[in-house]
């Protein structure tokens, strides 16, 4: 649908955990300022694929990644890439809200601090406020910035994690089932937030909820047993899937 070059390009990405192959040659082009949803049954490799994009799989022993993934034309598995910098550019929001056992302020300030983004205290304050505002949390927490982040509700915690992620100014945000631990109302808030964030970030979201994929994403990719079965515009995938498997999954026959 766009003619601009893809933000993230993956070619023939394979992942092995020990001897077990988790991903078989994934080719994808992910466009900037779009939400790309990865859907598929449990264990189909969508989270594994997501974690390849910011090299979080590096942490797991016995995990080998093959093929190439480039962001803005730069191969992120190249030896010259600084993983720490990469992860600052490609932020990640996890399945379970995982605020650090620190105050709300410190949670958001953590990223800017370790990357030395703020010159002084007032600049840092400003960054924290901006990030919390963007995550739609500022109204709720501005009067208790210095209380513990784990005292927030699940949905607030997840928005805190999003604020924490965008505080380091990434250009890609990866979300691994960000709403699976949340109730429908908190989920709706996060989904709205994703829609707003799309203007500034490239978002890749793994989700188990087909409705969520349909609501928030512009592109959808269906994974099955480590294969990328089908990808395309969300509208066409959901209304007119080309592949039988995709159709079966979307209509609830499998998965």
């Amino acid at each position, binding site marked *: 649908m766009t003619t601009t070059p893809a933000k993230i390009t993956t070619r023939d990405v394979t992942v092995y955990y020990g001897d077990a192959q988790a991903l078989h040659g994934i080719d994808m082009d992910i466009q900037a300022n779009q939400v790309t949803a990865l859907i598929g049954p449990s264990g189909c490799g969508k989270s594994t694929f997501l974690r390849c994009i910011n090299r979080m799989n590096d942490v797991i022993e016995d995990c080998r990644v093959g093929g190439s993934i480039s962001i803005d034309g730069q191969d992120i598995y190249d030896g010259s890439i600084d993983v720490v910098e990469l992860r*600052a550019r490609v932020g990640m929001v996890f399945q379970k809200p995982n605020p650090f056992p620190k105050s709300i302020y410190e949670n958001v300030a953590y990223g800017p601090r370790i990357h030395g983004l703020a010159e002084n205290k007032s600049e840092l304050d400003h960054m924290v406020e901006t990030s919390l505002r963007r995550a739609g949390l500022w109204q709720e927490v501005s009067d208790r910035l210095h209380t513990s982040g784990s005292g927030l509700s699940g949905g607030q915690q997840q928005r805190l994690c999003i604020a924490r992620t965008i505080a380091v100014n990434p250009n890609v945000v990866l979300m691994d089932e960000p709403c699976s631990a949340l109730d429908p109302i908190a989920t709706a808030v996060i989904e709205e937030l994703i829609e707003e964030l799309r203007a500034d970030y490239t978002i890749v979201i793994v989700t188990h909820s087909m409705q969520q994929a349909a609501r928030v994403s512009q592109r959808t990719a269906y994974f099955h047993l480590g294969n990328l079965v089908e990808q395309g515009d969300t509208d066409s995938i959901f209304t007119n899937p080309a592949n039988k498997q995709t159709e079966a999954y979307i209509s609830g026959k499998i998965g």
Partner: protein
Amino acid sequence: MSLSFLVICLAGLGLYSFFFGRHRIRAISRQSELKQHSQDTYHGSFLLICTTLLPLFILIIWSSFSPLILNAMLRSKLDILAGPLSVGEMGVQLAQAKALYAGIINPAFVGDSVKQAAAYYGELVSMSNTARAVLVLSAAVAGIGYGARLLDVRFRARHRVESFAKWLMILASAIAVLTTIGIILSLIFESLRFFDKVSLSEFLFGLQWSPQIAIREDQAGGSGSFGAVPLFAGTLMITLVAMLVAVPVGLMSAIYLSEYASPRLRNIAKPTIEVLAGIPTVVYGFFAALVLAPLLRNGGNDIGLTVSSESALAAGLVMGIMIIPFISSLSDDVINAVPQNLRDGAAGLGATQSETIRQVVLPAALPGIVSAILLAISRAIGETMIVVMAAGVAANLTANPFESVTTVTVQIVMLLVGDQEFDSVKTLAAFALGLVLFFITLGLNVLALYVVNKYREQYD
């Protein structure tokens, strides 16, 4: 009937009652159309409990009180047979009569009154044993009868056994708690007797410790002084040296093992470190005294320092090595308990591994680490053997770790070895030291609990 035979009989009855109960409930169940509430085994177990519980209780009570009663009766008999006796003579004759009854002294060596007393004692014992046997066995039989009447298809034997199990647990914990309370009370009362003789302020704030007291009235240099400050200062210094060794080494090895090491290395290294905790402290003690202390003295002399051949430093260093595993093993456990998603979160923001550990993992694990350190401190304060061997027994009040010092626990040993009268000031001083030591470790435990509770919920 002898005790062992009685116990065997009781066990036999118990076993019988178990099978009898099982058999009986089956028979009852066959007659009934109702669904049986508890399985056969529970009925058997219930009957077993009915049969043995009360007899065991009687047995324990009887065995603990009958010697006292028999003794009193023997004493009054001897009073009648041999006329009024002094305390010492009475003690001797009592012992002789019992020994004669047991057949371990030659009757030729004892007087007539003792012989008669022994015969009387023999009668008493056999009467007591017979009464015991009758009481215990009839209680057991009555128990079977009582229990067997209760057995029925709808009888809730399962719940009865369940509540018996609960009471058994309560009993076990009550024993532990009461023992603790008993020890503390005994410490307190003996200490109060000590503080009758030595004032509390002298004990707590006195700077001189030399617990020599006169055995004879005219003995020279026998007025003891009981100022415990040098002991606590020595304890503090050795503990401090030990913690300076153990905390950094233990904590860093814990971090390495839990965050960096491969599972294979971890599986080998962790048990290896834990072996350190299994070495008897006396071995550490002579290692400190025979290897490390001379090394320190010679090394110190070479660079112009005066190091005593028994020094706080030697004891503290070795003690530090001894408590490394407490810190490393416990900290390793709590660091591992920090959820992986916190590490992922930090890594996802672009934190390096050591940043993640310092800024996220360690703060989250802090309560556990603090309690590990406090446990190690308690261990260091209570340690005796290493100090006796490596730091000496002289109560010096000094801040110089190269000098010989002593600790509270070592002095408790010193006060109690050798022949002592139980109510001398010297012996009682041990109770007072023990009491203070108890309060110090109690305080540390309370502090540890407080720290853990205050920070515990942070990552839940």
